[in-house]
């Protein structure tokens, strides 16, 4: 519930909205036929998300094609930043967000345990990958985002094939990875690595000895690999596919031990005043249209009827690390601290 209601941004947004409306009605007559079924009361919801800004903007635009009556205000930041903001807001007058769409299930487990989330199972839940749907119905995964090894094809000729290989002295000063303080996916990964029998603290210590550059989040990591500043990166896979598609000399390697993944879950805060609008937004995220957009945005989808992004493997072609979520949630803070003490001192 923002008080930002001045005439200048309103006027600009108005112009933008008219322009957008003009585009959509001319390009997709099919979409305009649908709203009649699900038109809701006009409402404004606030979305806190760690999606990249441009992707979040596209998402909202696509949602507004079906629900033009709902305004979505987007606040974008890293998952770490968002959880801090939510914590601050709880202390000073209530959570401002209605919908929360951020990196990892652990964060949502925590919120659910504290009773902050509204119980809601999206329409069409049978079509979804059962692994990403919360059994208690507090949150639902919306994209499968594995963390992989990326490498610059202009500099690295033989791709590293395992996490273990990255501790090889040949990769000293060559690696870049995101900071778990900021990136929710990175924080989750730290816990998964530490929890894994083959890797654990020993591997992490060895990796730290190769002095990787710690970028703030996944975006700068993929850029650093693409430009060759650091030829090897530990990064979420969709960013690599996008850059490769644009022409950057970058490729993905799925490590043999298995890849950790986050599911970018979505949840609704219990004290929302716009539950219906928020639920419509959640429904859209996992609907066929929403998932098609996810695939267009290079994400692996959570339903099997929308294909996969070009150049992406299907889920059964790669080894997945699926640890016990409860263990991850209870060890994540300590894992981040371990990471900090190894990599950031």
């Amino acid at each position: 519930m923002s008080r930002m209601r001045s005439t200048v941004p309103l006027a600009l947004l108005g112009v933008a909205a008219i322009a957008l409306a003009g585009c959509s009605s001319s390009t997709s007559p099919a979409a305009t036929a649908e709203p009649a079924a699900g038109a809701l009361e006009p409402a404004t919801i606030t979305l806190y998300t760690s999606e990249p800004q441009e992707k979040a903007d596209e998402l909202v635009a696509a949602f507004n094609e079906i629900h033009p009556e709902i305004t979505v205000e987007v606040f974008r930041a890293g998952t770490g930043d968002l959880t801090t903001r939510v914590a601050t807001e709880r202390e000073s007058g209530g959570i401002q967000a209605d919908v929360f769409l951020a990196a990892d299930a652990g964060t949502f487990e925590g919120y659910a345990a504290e009773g902050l989330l509204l119980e809601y199972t999206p329409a069409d839940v049978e079509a979804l990958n059962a692994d990403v749907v919360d059994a208690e119905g507090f949150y639902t995964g919306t994209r499968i985002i594995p963390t992989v090894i990326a490498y610059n094809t202009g500099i690295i000729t033989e791709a590293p094939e395992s996490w273990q290989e990255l501790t090889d002295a040949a990769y000293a000063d060559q690696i870049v990875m995101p900071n778990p303080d900021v990136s929710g996916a990175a924080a989750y990964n730290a816990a998964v690595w530490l929890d894994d029998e083959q890797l654990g603290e020993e591997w992490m210590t060895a990796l730290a000895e190769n002095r990787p550059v710690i970028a703030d989040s996944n975006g700068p990591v993929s850029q650093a690999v693409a430009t060759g500043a650091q030829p090897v990166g530990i990064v979420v896979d969709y960013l690599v596919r996008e850059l490769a598609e644009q022409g950057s000399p970058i490729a993905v390697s799925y490590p043999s031990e298995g890849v950790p993944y986050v599911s970018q879950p979505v949840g609704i805060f219990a004290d929302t005043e716009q539950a219906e609008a928020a639920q419509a937004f959640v429904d859209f995220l996992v609907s066929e249209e929403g998932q098609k957009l996810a695939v267009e945005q290079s994400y692996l989808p959570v339903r099997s009827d929308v294909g996969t992004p070009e150049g992406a493997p299907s889920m059964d072609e790669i080894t997945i690390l699926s640890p016990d979520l409860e263990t991850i949630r209870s060890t994540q803070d300590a894992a981040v601290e371990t990471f900090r003490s190894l990599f950031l001192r």
Partner: protein
Amino acid sequence: MTSTPLLPAGSAIRARGAVRRRTDGVDALVVALWLACGGLILLPIGALLVLAGRGDQLGVLLHGDVLQAGANSLFSATVSALAAVVIGTTFAVLLDRTDLPGRTVLRLLALSPLLMPPFVGAIAWLGIAGPTSPLNLWWRGTFGAPLWSIYGADGVILLLTIHSYPIAMLIVSAALRRIPTDLEQAARISGAGPARALTSVTVPLLRPALVSSFVLIAVGNLADFGIPSIIGLPERFVTLATLVYRYLQSGTVDDPLAVVATIGVVLLVLALLALVADGLLARRGWELDSSNAVPERTPLGHARVGVGAMMWAVVLLITVLPLLALLTQTLLRAPGVPLTWENLTLDHLVRAVTTPSALAGAANSTMLASLAAVICGILGLAIGVVVARTSGRAPRALGAVAMVPQAIPGIVIAVAWLILAPSLGLFNTPWLILVAYVTSFTALVVQAVAAPLSATPTSAEEAARVAGAGRLRALVDISARMATPAAVAGAVIVAVTAVRELTLSVLLLSPGSQTLGVAIFNFQQAGAFSTASAWSLIVALVGLAVIGLATRRTS
């Protein structure tokens, strides 16, 4: 800039005022202005001090991270300020006192880094000296390792220097104009060569200006957020400003506000110490009457062409090259592809300017900057007029209080307002950014108004009083009207400063009220470098154009 007389010699009015101690409109105005300054300046600083003083935060200051960041901040601010003063003074002396070729154009170019927001400069310089800049890629291809990467302490110092030397140049130039060339001529007559006369007579007389510009620059650089965040963090060069941001944004400490308040007080103390040092060192200077004599330029002789070429090379390097780098980063199809014609595209530029979040940020910044300009303009005009045209302790102290924020690092002001926000109901609203702008920038207008007004005689006001106008009427009708053009100029400076500001808004933003600076910073952080570059290019070019046009009329 060195000494601004806050009180005019209006002894006639003072005598009459003392006789007639009746409360009038002027007293009410002074009280109102005190309330405004109290709420906008003293209240936030008080809140900061209270929160820092409450509880035991001293342990925090001795924490390894904080000590390291403090040392880094002091080091980068001191070294960059020293370098800025050396470069600024050299430029000022060369441009004002020698027959360097192309001085007029050179001066404008040399001032331009001041017009580019520091974080935009940081984004631009990544394209020149980042690890994968064309130069470094070529060097690595030839010699196996990059030549020099801008990331880290050296890069932070370089960029802080580039963005602050114009301040030293402006201050020293102004001081140079007040030093009569008669002294140099006397030295010449006694047998000194032109260079000797310049370095042994004029340069020592610049000491107060040198000290003042050093202090002003060091305090400013102590708190800069954009440069250390974009250039320093990748090499883990953490300063107090970036540490404050990290503490507030990603709960790595418990009770972040109290911790950050304590760090803020440390910054405040450092800034005040610098001011005291300035007062002790600079004020013990020499008072010189300005001279009407046209300064005689020292001929550079044989060195003229060499020095001229070098100066042109340096100035073009620090002004034109960053813009070219931004342009390249904007147009390149994808990161990592070679710079060839077929790899250039306008797609990123088009996408950037149609991104709703950036447009919303631009709209918010425009609104906040316009409001800040109006409020600062009115408030600054009123304070400036009262300070310059009334006597007594209350107005004098008012002037001093109004100028205090100039010496406070912006990040401290942001933290102070963050502390107050929940109790004032401003949390998560754009008005938080607005009040912080007003706190920070009102001094710009007061300064623009008070100094020239103090220098004009009070005869017109006295005439108005004789003709029967009350004190308030004379102030409003005569003084305020006279000072209005200066206030408008000050308000314009406030607007252009606020519209592309980052340090304050990055800490105070809320959902739906992102500013343009924060939008660009977020693109950079999220790895959308082409989008960040495209917007940086737009901000830099529009800023240069607007200020270029504005200054052309006055100079």
